[in-house]
């Protein structure tokens, strides 16, 4: 089964940012995204659920490398200074590459 390579960009950030980050992701050319609720700890301390005041979300985007870089750069610009957020990227094999 032949597959093609795309980038999987994973973003972990505070839940309150969901609507904004997701909008950015789409605007910058991704064709879709998947969100899961998460909790965790990082430079800005523990982020645990409750009146979703401080819960995290985990956003996955499968897209072309260029798009992934675009999104990553934009997120770093807009959110890194003030918001709890990390992101990492990895190459993945996909079917139906045109979808992504």
């Amino acid at each position: 089964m032949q597959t093609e390579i795309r980038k999987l960009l994973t973003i972990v950030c505070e839940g309150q940012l969901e609507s904004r980050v997701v909008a950015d992701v789409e605007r910058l050319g991704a064709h879709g995204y998947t969100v899961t609720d998460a909790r965790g700890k990082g430079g800005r301390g523990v982020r645990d659920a409750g009146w979703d005041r401080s819960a995290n979300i985990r956003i996955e985007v499968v897209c072309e490398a260029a798009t992934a870089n675009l999104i990553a750069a934009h997120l770093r610009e807009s959110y890194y200074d003030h918001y709890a957020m990390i992101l990492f990227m990895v190459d993945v094999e996909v079917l139906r590459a045109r979808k992504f």
Partner: protein
Amino acid sequence: MSTLDPVVLFFVLGVVAGLMRSDLRLPSAVYEFVTMLLLLAIGLKGGVELSRQSLATMAPQMGAVIAMGLTLPLLAYPVLHYAGKLKRADAASIAAHYGSVSVGTYAVVAAYLSSQGIPFEEYMPVFVVMLEIPAIFVGILLVRGRALQQPFSHLAREIFLGKGVVLLIGGLLIGWIAGADGVQPIGKLFFDLFKGILALFLLEMGLITVGQLGDLRRSGLFLVAFAIVFPMFAAMIGGTLGWALGLSLGGTVVMATLAASASYIAVPAAMRMAVPEASPSLSLAASLGVTFPFNILIGIPLYHSAVRLMYPEGA
């Protein structure tokens, strides 16, 4: 009976469990559910009473209450910024929290008075709703001046459309439109269960409070002192206002408590979006970690006895 209202014992249970590192935790969906019920119930209650009042008679009181909501953060800000050496954004954000109110604290003072058999103006929830928001604007203006980072519309949405505010105001409007009779059939859920739901809410609040202690240690002694002293000061203002407005003894205790309470629902969400450079953990550590427990454990009885002096003839 114990000096602590039973519902407050649930808060204590939460604190103790948290300090002992129990794995007890309300599932976040349940905590959200419980909070929504409280917000709707308070809104509905306020709306029903509003439908009983003539707006004309209430207008002056409302104006005064809003004025208080605008003044308190202006009093808190310089203390935090100059005395406390806090960054401008942090000082403004914390000031906004303390200018606003805590729905949970209101619920506790209402429970406290009712279990002491002390009556108070039924329309107090209206003031709760009205005090949520003004301080947020003051807080934002304190940082941004008129130079807002984002379009104001976007900002107003963050403020008015945060779910906390929507449920309070939505409940208020529904209660107002439906009136006492209309709301009666849903009262079994929103009113009869209120105290039980509040107990669960306070249980989780206790656990959350403990979770704030870590941030608190980092945030320093000044903030802890502020989170105790400012509320007492604010309570005097609120109490005096209640008394000046000719509220009953109970109503004045509520006003004092509202002034003393600090928001942790509407304001954090709004400030996070409007003033992202302000550290959310600072304001939450102060309002959740110190002021909330202080108010429900010590503050409310304290304000009560203080107000008693203003009402020599009793009620």
